[in-house]
């Protein structure tokens, strides 16, 4: 059994071993657990020249990764928190995402930006953001969010081997999740997308990354209460292919999206909108719904964190309401 955190490390080791043009750069890479167990001792194994710890300069490190990518390398720039990466929005969004198009497709920018969602633990508003909805909004930037150890590994490999700039977002809350892994497969990222990970006819549950786990756990509980769910793990948020979501909702007639980001102009709304555009009114058995973060920055105090973050119970409860097993008391 390999954990999600270790699976990420395996992807790094796989890439660094086989591809001499791969290197990693970012804050904390010479610490054994700055980024959890996901990169432990890579610097010792592959040398500090290829696993580079850096000054506190998010923008320059990301820009430099882009420059190396344009020069024949396959850099992975690591941002230990999404929040810090906001200082590097320019190189990611204005530069890397547009580089191919701006120059007429003659060149691409194959850098991978790895950002970690690291929240909870009373860390507060500036140490807890997800913001994948932002990046999924940007044409030219592929956005990947693995929900399982095998995806954590294989989609990281695929990201680095992709000719395009990729934002790969992993979630510290998943690092303990375990799975038996097959040998690494070198997937072509442009052919990866959402996947149906559980089938059931009553309700479509859609998640990405940690929220997929919430959906799967909720689906198990719901099954024991007689509600059978399709569960869709989005995996690749941009470019987003919602075909299988629509196919599923055509079967179930019900859609509940679970997303650990904010609501307005977020991923949850995107999934609902895509389904609403694709499915005729007659195909719906109930109104679609989304569960997201409250419209507030993350709090610190533990009791508030408990109300702030979504739980399996929240999903189960809403699913029961949507499937008519439960009344809303307002």
């Amino acid at each position: 059994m390999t954990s999600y955190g270790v699976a990420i490390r395996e992807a790094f080791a796989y890439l660094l071993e086989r591809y001499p043009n791969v290197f990693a750069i970012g804050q904390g890479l010479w610490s054994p657990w700055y980024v959890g167990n996901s990169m432990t001792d890579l610097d010792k194994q592959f040398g500090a020249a290829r696993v580079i710890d850096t000054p506190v300069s998010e923008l320059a490190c990301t820009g430099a990764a882009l420059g190396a990518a344009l020069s024949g390398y396959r850099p992975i720039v690591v941002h230990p928190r999404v929040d810090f990466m906001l200082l590097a929005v320019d190189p990611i969004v204005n530069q890397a995402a547009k580089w191919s198009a701006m120059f007429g497709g003659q060149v691409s920018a194959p850098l991978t930006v790895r950002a970690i969602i690291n929240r909870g633990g009373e860390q507060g508003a500036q140490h807890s953001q997800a913001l994948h909805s932002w990046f999924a909004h940007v044409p030219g930037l592929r956005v990947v969010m693995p929900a399982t150890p095998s995806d954590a590994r294989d989609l990281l490999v695929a990201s680095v081997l992709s000719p395009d700039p990729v934002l790969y977002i992993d979630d510290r809350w998943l690092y303990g999740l375990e799975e038996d892994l097959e040998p690494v497969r070198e997937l072509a990222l442009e052919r990866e997308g959402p996947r149906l990970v559980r089938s059931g006819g009553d309700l479509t549950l859609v998640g990405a990354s940690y929220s997929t786990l919430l959906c799967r756990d909720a689906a198990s509980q719901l099954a024991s209460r007689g509600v059978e769910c399709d569960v869709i793990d989005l995996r690749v948020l941009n470019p987003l292919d919602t075909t299988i979501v629509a196919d599923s909702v055509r079967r179930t007639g019900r859609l509940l999206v679970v997303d650990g980001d904010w609501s307005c102009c977020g991923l949850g709304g995107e999934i609902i909108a895509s389904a609403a555009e694709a499915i005729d009114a007659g195909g719906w058995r109930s109104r679609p719904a989304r569960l997201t973060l409250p419209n507030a920055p993350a709090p610190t105090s533990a009791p508030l964190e408990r109300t702030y973050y979504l739980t399996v119970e929240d999903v189960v409860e809403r699913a029961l309401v949507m499937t008519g097993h439960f009344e809303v008391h307002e």
Partner: protein
Amino acid sequence: MGAPPSITDQLRADQLGPLADANQFHGPLVLPAANRGWLADALRGMLQIRAVEERIGEMVSTGAVRCPCHLAIGQEAVAVGVALQIRKGDRIFGAHRSHSHYLALGGDMHRLFAEVLGRRTGASRGMGGSMHLLDLEHGLLGTVPIVGATIPVAVGAGLAARFDGAGGVAVSFFGDGATEEGSFHEAMNLAAVLKAPVLFVCENNLFSSHLHIALRQPADSISRYAEAHRIPWLRVDGNDIVAIVEAARSLVEPMRDGGGPGFLEAVTYRWRGHVGPREDEDVGVQRKEDLASWKRRDPIGRLADALVAAGDLVSADVTRIRHEVRAEVAAASARAERDPYPAAESLLATVYGRPGRSHS
């Protein structure tokens, strides 16, 4: 062991030289000849910070405190020394390691304990934790943990002070790591161009997380940046409160008379790891052995020794102050542990302001 360099006797802007040497400056401080009544209070202030942070460290160890806490133990002189130059109406900003700034400015210790415990009675009403502290009464307009973030914010507060025309200043506390962020340089240039009265205080403790400055910058002194941005600068042993006070005064006084920014580099060292109470590691990286030497460069011990040597205090006074402070700390922390958590409504109720609410 060299004598502390006078603040006007600067080395080259790019080299700390002996200031970065753990084996220098171990002896008692050189006290001013006269007008030094304030030093006993400064000693108490530093002891208070240390005792509060030691207690927070314990509370982290026991699990009573859960939020990330970055302790400034060993760096107390910078906060207390600079705070002595701050007047009512000045505006101060800190970063992730700012318990010391909060306390040195006069912040209530019970509210600090309550905040790190996430209680409603905290400095930020339990909504911020250790890394987000506010104390409007004492001019602390905010501390936040995005490295470098408050440096330009302080420049704006300095601009506001210039607009106010009342001789106020802004102060920005940050570390050596923060000077690697572009925000720092943009802010320095902007302050210079706007002639904003901002005191930039860089606590150069030689480390950013687990990385020594030698791995992050081509030289170890931050003052070279002030030189480049044409901002008057002074550099001192950050464990010498006398030197800090003198340097801060000579930088702040011209600002109150309409001058532009000033830059103070205080070379110091943190005794605890980057985050949390442990002494032996920084995010998993074994720390070097020079901590023992740095402990001999203790900003508190060296002041206490000097005051006793000068006859301003007897040892028993020092012991008494230590006891008093510890008793305060015990009472304040115990009280905070009984305080209630914020109400669930605070989550949504604090996001937007109430219209017409005055904020300053």
